[in-house]
C-alpha cells in the first residue's frame, strides 16, 4: 500500500509533454501538500487535462518525473496499480457516470470490484455516499439521464469518494452549473475537505470557486507552472496572470474577498 500520510502528496519535476512539434509542458514543476485545495488554472490548450492525465499515470510524460506519495507514478508496477487507483478519486468534466446503471450502481461499481461485500452492505454504502454529497436518498434508483447537471456533478463526486481516497481530482467541478448550485458545490467541497481530511486538486475556470475554496493556485503559463497563494497571485506581474486575476470578471468575484481580507 502507498503511505497516504506522505508529504508532499504530489510532486511533479521538470515535466515535459509534447504532441509532435507542439510542446505543451516544458519543465513544469508542481507540488501539492497534504490537506490542500490546489486549483489549476490556464488558458485553453495549455495542457491542464494533459497534466491531470500525467499525474494519474494515464499518460507517460516525455520527460521529467511525477511522484504520488513519494513514489514514481510510471514505475508503480502493474500489481501496485490497484492500490494506486484506490488512493485517489477522480471526477470528470461531464460526470462520466455509466448511463446504463443507476446512481447507486455507479457508486457500487468500484466497491464491487475491490471489496467482497454483501448486497445490503453495498446498498448501505451507496446510501452513505449519496447522502454525503447532499443528494436525497431517492436519487439512488435514478439513472444519470434523469438527473440535472448539478446532481450529475454530485453523483460523480459520490462515486469518486466511494473508495475513500485521501486525494481527490476534480476536473471543472462547477462548469455548467448555475451560480447558486456552484456556490452550494463549493460549500459541500469545503465541508467534505475538512471532515474527510482530503487533499484536492481541482481544474477550474470558475473564479468564484477559485477564490472561495483554493488554498493555493497553480497557473500554467508559457508551458510552466507558477504556483502561489491567492494574495501572492494577485500581486504577480506576469501579463496573462494579471489579465486573469484582474479582468472584469475577476474583479466582481474578488469584491467580497477584499472586503473581508484586504480592504
Amino acid at each position, binding site marked *: 500500500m502507498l503511505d497516504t500520510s506522505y508529504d508532499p502528496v504530489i510532486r511533479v519535476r521538470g515535466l515535459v509533454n509534447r504532441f509532435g512539434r507542439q510542446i505543451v509542458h516544458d519543465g513544469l514543476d508542481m507540488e501539492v501538500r497534504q490537506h490542500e485545495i490546489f486549483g489549476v488554472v490556464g488558458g485553453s490548450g495549455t495542457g491542464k487535462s494533459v497534466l491531470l492525465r500525467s499525474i494519474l499515470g494515464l499518460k507517460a510524460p516525455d520527460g521529467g518525473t511525477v511522484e504520488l506519495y513519494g513514489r514514481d507514478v510510471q514505475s508503480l508496477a502493474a500489481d501496485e496499480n490497484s492500490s494506486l487507483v484506490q488512493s485517489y478519486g477522480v471526477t470528470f468534466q461531464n460526470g462520466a457516470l455509466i448511463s*446504463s446503471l443507476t446512481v447507486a450502481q455507479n457508486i457500487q461499481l468500484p466497491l464491487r470490484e475491490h471489496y467482497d*461485500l454483501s448486497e445490503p452492505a453495498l446498498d*448501505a454504502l451507496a446510501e452513505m455516499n449519496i447522502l454525503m454529497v447532499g443528494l436525497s*436518498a431517492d436519487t439512488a434508483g435514478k439513472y444519470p439521464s434523469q438527473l440535472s447537471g448539478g446532481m450529475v456533478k454530485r453523483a460523480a463526486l459520490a462515486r469518486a469518494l466511494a473508495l475513500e481516497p485521501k486525494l481527490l481530482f476534480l476536473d471543472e467541478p462547477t462548469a455548467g452549473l448555475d451560480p447558486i448550485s456552484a456556490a452550494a458545490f463549493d460549500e459541500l467541497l469545503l465541508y467534505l475537505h475538512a471532515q474527510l*481530511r482530503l487533499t484536492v486538486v481541482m481544474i477550474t475556470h470558475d473564479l468564484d470557486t477559485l477564490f472561495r475554496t483554493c488554498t493555493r493556485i497553480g497557473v500554467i503559463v508559457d508551458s510552466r507552472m507558477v504556483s502561489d497563494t491567492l494574495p501572492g497571485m494577485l500581486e504577480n506581474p506576469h501579463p496573462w496572470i494579471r489579465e486573469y486575476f484582474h479582468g472584469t470578471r475577476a474583479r466582481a468575484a474578488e469584491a467580497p474577498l477584499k472586503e473581508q481580507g484586504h480592504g
Partner: protein
Amino acid sequence: MDANVTASLSLEGPDERRDLKLVGDWSPASMPHIERQLLTLPANLCGHVICDWSAAKTPGIGPAWLLLTRLIDLGCSHLDIEHVGNPPHFLELLKKLTHDRHLARTTHLHVPSLETLVGRLGLWAVLQGRYMRGVLEFFGRIVAVVGQIFSRPRALRISSLTRHMYETGVTAIPIVSLIAFLISVIVAYLGAQQLARFGANIFVVDLVTIAVLREMGVLLTAIIVAGRSGSAFAAEIGVMQLNEETDALRAMGLNPIEVLVVPRVLALFIVLPCLTVIADGMGLAGGILLSLVNLHIPLPEFISRMQEALAPTTFWAGLVKAPVFAILIAMVGTYRGMQVRDSARELGRLTTVAVVQSIFFVIFADALFAVLFVQLDF
C-alpha cells in the same frame, strides 16, 4: 503501522448501557471482515451504546457507517450512540449522515405500491393502450405529411429520398440476389430428390416457380431488408434523438416526421418491390440452373412447363405484398428510433426490438395475405 490486526468488536456491560470496543484495522479494506463481525451483534439493542474507538486503527467512514447503520437497524436510536476514545475525525459528518438517513426513512415510510397482481395487470393494460395510441398517432402523422406532398411539393425531400433509396435499395441488391439464388437452388434440389421417387422430376419447375414468385422472393427480401434497413433506421434516428438533433429540428420549425421518417418510408415503399422483382429473377435463375445441371431439363422445356404451371396472378400475388411489407418495416424502424430516450442502452434495446418486430409483422402479414388470397381465389 499496526494495520495487520484484523478488525473486531466486543460488546460488554448491562443492557441499558453497553460498551462496544472496536479493535484492529478499521480501514475500508477490512469492510468485508467487519461486515461479518457485525452479524454477530445481538438483536434488540436498546438503550445506550458507547463506541470506544481507542484501539481502532485508521478508521474509515465506510466501516463506521456500516457499524452505525447496523446498530440502528438492530433497534438502537441514532441519538443513543456515543463515541469515546479518540473518535474518528469525520464524526460530525457521520452524525449528520445518520440523521439524514433517519429523516429519509421517516418521511418516506409507506408508499402504496402497485405490486399486486391486479395492479400490474391494470398498469400493463394502460401502457398497452397508450402504446397503441402512440403507434396510431405516428401513422396518422406520416399520412398527414404524405397528404401534404400533393399540395406542397417541398414536403417531399427529394435528396433525402434518393439517398435512402440508394442505401436501402441499390446496396442491398448483391445480398438479396445471392440469398434468393441460393435458397431457390436448395428448394429445387431437395424438391427434386423427393419428386424423383415418383418419377415426377418435371414438377420441380412448378415447385420452384410458384414458391419463388408467390412467397419466397418477397418474404426473403423483406426479411433481409428488415435486418439491414430496419435496424439502420432505428439506430440513425435513435442517435439523433440522443444528440437532441430531433429537438433542434423542431425548434427550427422543421417536422422530424417530414424530414426523417417520410423519406425513409417512401424510399422503402419504392425500393422493396424492385428488390422483390430482382429476387424473383434470381430465384428463377437458380431453379433453371439446378434443373439444367442436376435434372437435365433444358431451358426451353423449363420455360414451357413454367408457362403451364403459372396462373396469370402468381407473379402479382407475390409482388403486391412488397409495398405493404415495406411500410411495416419502415414504420417499425423509424417509430422505435423516435422512441429512444436518454441512454445508449435504450438505443441498443430499441434497435433490436425494431428488427425483431418488423420481421414478426412481415411474417404475420404474409399469413394474412395467404388466407386472403385463398379466400379470393387469387
